[in-house]
């Protein structure tokens, strides 16, 4: 089961180009323990949307989520329960 969220987050630390630690909208810091998967999506090119890079991650505190980078902004896109 998953929920679409699409909430802006702030990446605090990186490993190569992948997010290592991020701060959620409520101020909570999450540290990535595992990068489960990574892929890219082109977006709605006809509406001017750019490429999205998605990382499916698992954090130390048990969050499994898809983090999405779009035009240099990061979102928590989907949370897996």
């Amino acid at each position, binding site marked *: 089961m998953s929920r679409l969220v699409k909430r802006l987050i702030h990446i605090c630390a990186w490993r190569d180009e992948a997010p290592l630690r991020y701060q959620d909208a409520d101020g909570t810091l999450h540290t990535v323990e595992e990068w489960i998967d*990574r*892929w*890219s*999506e*082109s977006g709605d*090119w*006809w509406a001017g949307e750019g490429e999205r890079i998605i990382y*499916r991650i698992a954090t130390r505190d048990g969050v499994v989520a898809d983090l999405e980078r779009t035009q240099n902004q990061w979102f928590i896109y989907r949370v897996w329960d």
Partner: protein
Amino acid sequence: MFVHLHVHSYFSMLDGASSVESLVAQAAAHGMPALALTDHNTVAGLAQLHHWCAVYGIKPISGAELTLHDGSHLTVLAKTPTGYENLCRLLTAAYATEAWRRERIVRVPDLLPYTEGLIALSGCRRGQLTKQIIQRRYAEAKRIATFYAQAFAGRYYIELLGDDWPHTERINADLADLGEALGLPLVASANVHYHTPALLPVHDTLRCIATDCDIRTPHGERPLNAAAWLHDEREAARRFARYPEAVANTFRIATSCEVVLRLHEALFPAFDLPSDETDAAAYLRHLVYEGAVQRYPRVDHALRARIDHELQIITQLGYAEYFLVVWDIVRFARRRGIRCAGRGSAADSAAAYCLYITDVDAAGRGLLFERFMSIERSERPDIDIDFDARRRDEVIAYIYDKYGAQHVARVATYQTFRGRSAIREVGAALALPSSLIDTLAKRLPYYVGAQDIEQALDHVPELAPYKSYQDRLKWLWQLSAQITGFPRHFGMHVGGVVISRKPILSLTTLQPSAKGDLIIPWDKEDVEMVGLVKLDILSLRTMSAISDTITLRAQQQQPLDYDAIALDDQATFEMINRGETIGVFQLESPAQRALQARLGADQLEDIVASVALIRPGPVKGNMVDPFVSRRRGVEEIQYLHPKLEPILGKTYGVILYQEQVIAIATSLAQFTPGEADQLRRVMSHARSAEHMDHIGAQFIAKAVQAGVDTHTASQVFAMMKGYASYGFCEAHAAAFATTAYKTAYLVRHYPAEFYAAILNNHPMGYYPIHVVCAEAQRRGVALLGVDCNASDYACTVEEGKIRLGFRLIKGMRKELAEQLQLAREAGPFHSIPALLQRVPSIDPLLAERFIRCGALDSIEPRGRRLALWQLPVWLAARDSLATSLWGDTAGKWSSQETIEAEVSDFSLAEKLRDEYSLLGVGVSGHWLRLYRASLNEQGYTTTQAIDALVDGVTVSLAGLTIRPHRPPTRSGLVTVFFTIEDETGFADCTMFEHVYQESGAVLFTPRGRLVGVTGRVDRRGGQRPQIIVEQVWSLA
């Protein structure tokens, strides 16, 4: 080093989004040493791959991506020529199966006999192996990998994914583990579909079209991202960072593969010489001189010199056997009475004339052989021959019989996205409203390509209402322009045939057409790249019409020797000069008729010029008016240099023909004829002003060297420059002009037979059936309607009148007409019920059509309306097996069918509606006759009456609109040409831009079928009055 080994071009139709050249150029720009091409189930792109790889200096690797029985993919590459031939054989075998016809798939068992010399890559996400890995069915994955490893004996590689989709890392890891466990090598692959990431929208749009969905609809076959581009080595290293061996293996594979296709190889077959001949060139010489004696009253020194010159070039270039093959085909046709005539630059050859391949006396006309063949150009000759359309297949069958099915094939043609088709399909993919797309597509002028669409919005008034959508439609225009030229449908060229010395399957695949002809996947350009020589065995309905005219004359015991028609019949020229050329080959369009009325042709040379003049290029180049003025002696002819007079004299100082450009370069600047032809070709393809200036400098320098002053040389080149890009091949014009003149002769002297022949071969020519019939009537040839007791299937001639045939009735079948004629042999039909009984295969629909079009008028005097009322009763009675209330035998029909009723027949309007609809022509009269009284009251004139009016008089006409069209013009402004037909004849109309913008758009809508026009009479110095339109309105 990295090489792309899994690559799709636009020959993977509706999937690949780049041309072959773009892909090769990109690979070369990345510094890659090689590139593979692996289109879906085809080797269509391989000729171009080899060509462009040679140009860009990289190695071509030939392959294909096969679709297997379960829909999965397997990538195969040809390692050796044997491997390539196996690839061609396996695809050919697959094309012939039911599985291919239904679903476009290869069955794996069908693949196994052909693995030698092939390398297999396990495939993309749709690969059999990869699909099992995705589903974590490792045992099955192992079985599949083992199977293919054995089948391909050490030439099987596990293909890693670089597509940046979800789970790629996990899948690659599992594939690598499997490879390690089984000892199978890995190979890195990007599954390329385009050469730059910016083409993702094109790829996505093509996939939407292929899957019949739109951009709002998620679909598994649409791309998720733009990863499938032809990336560089650095990107490969990033994507496959954990698998450097897989990257390195791409280079090892590329190195191990041979170049399997050789371009420009000599592949023409040897000709089977008679037993007493040993040398093809000598035999050709013998045949040419044998023909010369027949064709010419005297074979003098000049003719011998000409023939010897041509034979020397033909022999030196190695084409003696090619000419013999063509001569043999023409000989076959002539012996069978199949009318034919060569066209194109082959008519520049006196040898071809002596061999009866063409009908143009090249030597007598002074045509330049080097326009057809030259040592310098060293290109394969290309001979096109028109045959009677109905018998062309006999000629092709002869070629297959003589050379063997292994060595003969038909050439492909690719319908590409262009203009309207691009708009419709891209619009649907972009989820635009269908009504909008439909309107845009219908209102796009035919000559507007997708790349011109944005401009068309500003200049085409019918598109004006949609300018407000411009922003929303940005993608529609852009994508339509980008896919213009992409292959959309694969088909068979109308007449292209190749005959190969080598078995075709050693070169390429053979795919059956719907009719069973076997087609190679290359079009005429690619065929020549490979070295195959193409013949064009074309069908031309005009040839059929000529044959039919001869037959119709023979049926009346008045034989006609078409080949003996004199080329100087003044009555024929007088008719041409009045612009009365409807039905005449090449001369019947309004533009041609207008020209003829001004030109005053009195020799075949004038007809040759006419064929060359009325084309977009000369019209845009403003060549027509100067030519006419000089021809009529109104404008003085001046030559820039005395040497130009013998070259340009026959065209009154105007450069009209490509051969004249060659002759000028030869005469003034001492180019050899071959060099001059090269010059002409370079000029016609010059891409920039700088390039043209460079060519000009070359010409001027040589001319000055030859003694011409610089200023004159510059002026001459300026004149050549203007015409080189659209000058016409004189030989082609001459070939067509000969047929044009002779068909004009037939119109003049045998109008009933010739117009009947045109009707029998319709659709053909420029005009619909009712125009052809109206013209025949205007010439005094009466029209007899279809009659069940008098008509044949074909139109015939009865005492100088045209009897319309059953074939004109909508839905009529030839076998039914034959049954009707057979039944008629027992005696004429006396009633409709009797006819229905004697010809039981006439179904209700056709019976109704017979009545409505008047075919049964002669046996039902009470009228068509009553006959229609009675028809169900008659049909029921016919079909009833038991004795009924109505009686059951034909003898009782007369008492049963009598219905005493006061029933008026259909009105003239109703009859005409049915006749136009079912026959294409009104036999009972003309539409305009219905309105003539009212039109006269309103001040309308008839088309016939304008003949008596002087230029400048303003008239109003009403009539049916025929063939409105908007050809490109010199000024770029729109000029519309159309014809008005009323019950007295025709009037040609010209409408200029301002009138078109104000009111002319209606002509291109359904309301424009019946119009009124007001305009000025203008003969433009000729005999035939035209109307310069000032206003047009719908009368519908």
